C-alpha cells in the first residue's frame, strides 16, 4: 500500500477512536437515569384514614417520604422519631399544597373509600396523555380537561381517547394512616 493510503486509514481510525473515547462515556452517563427504576416499594402517607368517609371520593396530597432524609447509621429510634415528626407535619401541609410532598412538585391523588375496609386510590393523571382529571361531585365522574376523557367513579373509561381505566396505587393502612406505593404506577404518573 502507498504511504498516503496507510496514513489516511490511520488518521480516520484515530479520529474514530477519539470520538469513541469521549463520546461513549458521555453517552453512558447521560443515559444512566434510564435504568434508575425504583427498587422496592416507596410508601407515602395520605393522612389519617378517618379523613376519608366511606362511599366518598376525596382528594389528598401525597405526603413527604418518611425516611428519605435520614442519614445512614442513625439509630432506629431516631429514624422513627423523624418519621413521626414528618407525618405530623403532613396534615398541616395539606392546606398549602406547595412543598407538601417533600419532592420537587406537590402531587395529589383521589381516594375512594369504597367500604370501611376497601380503599381505592386513583392517580389524577389521565390515562390518555396525563392531563389532571378532576372529580365532579355532581355527576360522580372524573373529567379530563384536555381531550375529552371521562372516567366513572370506579375509574373505568366512559368517553374520550383513553384506552384504559385510571391508574390505581397499591395502598395499605399503617397506624391509622392511609399509605400508597409510588412504585405501583408508571413513573410519569
Amino acid at each position, binding site marked *: 500500500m502507498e504511504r498516503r493510503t496507510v496514513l489516511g486509514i490511520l488518521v480516520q481510525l484515530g479520529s474514530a477512536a477519539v470520538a469513541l473515547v469521549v463520546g461513549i462515556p458521555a453517552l453512558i452517563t447521560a443515559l444512566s437515569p434510564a435504568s434508575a*427504576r425504583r427498587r422496592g416499594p416507596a410508601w407515602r402517607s395520605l393522612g389519617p384514614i378517618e379523613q376519608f368517609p366511606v362511599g366518598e371520593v376525596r382528594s389528598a396530597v401525597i405526603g413527604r417520604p418518611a425516611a428519605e432524609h435520614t442519614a445512614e447509621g442513625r439509630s432506629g429510634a431516631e429514624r422513627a422519631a423523624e418519621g413521626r415528626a414528618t407525618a405530623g407535619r403532613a396534615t398541616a401541609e395539606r392546606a398549602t399544597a406547595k412543598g407538601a410532598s417533600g*419532592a420537587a412538585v406537590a402531587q395529589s391523588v383521589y381516594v375512594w373509600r369504597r367500604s370501611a375496609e376497601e380503599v381505592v386510590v386513583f392517580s389524577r393523571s389521565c390515562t390518555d*396523555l396525563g*392531563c389532571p382529571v378532576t372529580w*365532579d361531585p355532581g355527576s360522580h365522574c372524573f373529567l379530563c380537561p384536555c381531550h375529552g376523557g371521562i372516567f366513572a367513579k370506579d375509574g373505568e373509561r366512559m368517553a374520550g381517547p383513553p384506552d384504559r381505566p385510571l391508574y390505581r396505587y397499591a395502598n395499605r393502612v399503617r397506624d391509622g394512616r392511609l399509605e400508597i406505593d409510588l412504585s405501583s404506577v408508571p413513573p410519569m404518573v
Partner: protein
Amino acid sequence: MASGPIAWLARRSRLKSAWHWVRDRFQLREIWQHVLDRRVAKGSWYFGDGATLFLLFIVLVVTGAAMTLSYSSASDEAYDSVRQITYGQPLGWFVRGLHYWSAGLMVVMLFFHLFRQILLGGYKSPREGSWLFGVFLFFGVMIMSLLGYILRWDERGIYALRVALNIFYRVPWIGEELVLLVQGGPEIGSETLSRIYAVHVIIGPLLLTSLIAYHLYLVVRHSITSPTERERPVETASEQRAVYERDALSKERGEIFYPDTVAKSGLMGAIFLALGIGLTFALGGGRLYPEANLAEPSYPMEEWWWSWFSALAALLPPWLASYFYVGFPLLLFVVLILLPFIDRGPHRGMRNRPIAVVLVSACVIALLGLSSLRIRSAWTAWPQPTPPPVPEGMVLPPEAEQGRQLFARYGCNSCHAIDGHGPGVGPDLADLRETLSYAEMRSYILQPPPGVAMPPYEDRLSEEELDRLVDFVMVVQTARQQ
C-alpha cells in the same frame, strides 16, 4: 466594489489602507465573491421565509441568552426567577415576550417553509441534502418550542411535560426507560427541570446552530428553485444546474444576491419581527400560570402552536390514539426524509404537481380547522358552578325551577347544554333529536343504555328529585318545539 456605509467608509483615503488590511487578514474577499456578490435566480416575495426563520432564530438566541443570566433551573426557584425576569427586571417583560412570540411565529414560519418546499419540489435533485437538514431542523425546532415553555415551570409547562412523558411511555419495549431518561429519576422533579434546561439552552441551540449552518451552506451551493425550473421538467442534477445558471445570468430572471435578494428576504423577516414586537406590546410578554404543581385542580392548555395536535388527540378513535402518538411523529419523520426519493418526477413548482397542491392545501385546512376546534373544545366535560340560564322569554313553573337547580347539583350541566348554554359533550337537552316520553326519560336517567357515556343515577336520586329534573327538561323542550 460594493455600496453601503461600510464601502463608503472604506473608500475614505485614510481608512483605505486599514480596510485593505482587514480585507486581507480576515479573507473577506472570498466571502464577498462566493456568497454576496454572486448572481442568483430571482425568487418570489415569499422566498424570504427562510431568512425570516434565520432572523427569528437569532432573536431567540439573543433574548434567550439574556434570560439565562437570571433564570434558575432549580425546581423550587425556577418559577420565581421567571416572575423576576418578567416583572422585576427592566424590559424583562419585553425580552421574554419577544422570545415567546418569536418562538410561536417561528413555528408558523416553519410550517410555511416546509409547505412551500413541498409545493415547489424544493427537495428535488440536487437539493436532497438541503432538504434532509431542513427535516432535522423542523423536528428540532418543534421540540424546542415545547421545551421552552416547560422551563416557565408553571401549570401549563408541567402538564406539557407530562403529556410528552405519556407519549414516550407508549413507545413499545423501551417506554418506561425513555420516561426515566427524560425525567432523570422516578418522578418529575428537580432532575427533570435540569435536563430540560440543558437541552433547551445548551444542547438544542448548539445542534440547531450547526444544522442551520450546514443547511445554509447547502442552500448557497445549490441555491433556490429558479423560475425556469418551475416552468419546465428538469430531469437530472446537471440539467438543473444548467437551467439555473441561465436564469441567474439572465437580466429578467436573475439578480445579485447582495443587496437585491438580501433586501427582499430581509424585508419579510423585518415584517415578522415587527409582528412579534407588536404582539408583545399588544398581548403582553407571554402569560404566566400558577406555579408548577400536580396537586391543584387545573385546566391546562398547550401553547397555541400545538392546538392542532391536541384537537387531533381528542378526535381520534381510542383504538387509533395509542398508535398515533408514537406512530405519527415517526411516520412523519420517515416520510419527510424519503420524500425526495418518493417524488421523483421531473416537474417542480405547482403547475404540474396537483398531488402536492392538494396535499398541502389539505394540511393547511386541517391545521387551521383543528386549531379552531381546539379553541371550542366541545369534547370537554367540566363542572359548571351555576345552573344553565332559563331560556329567553320562558317562565319556569316552580317544579321545573327546582329541576333547574338539581340540574347543576347533579352535574348534568357538566356535559349537557340547555338551549346552547353549556358544554356540548352530551346532547343539548332543549333540542333533543328524538324526544323521550316522561317515563322513558326517567328510566334513561336512572340507567342509561349501554355504550352511552353517562353515569347511572339509580342510587343517587330520590323519586321526587328525578321528577323535578324531568319536569325541567320537559318544559324547556316543549317550549322549544312550539
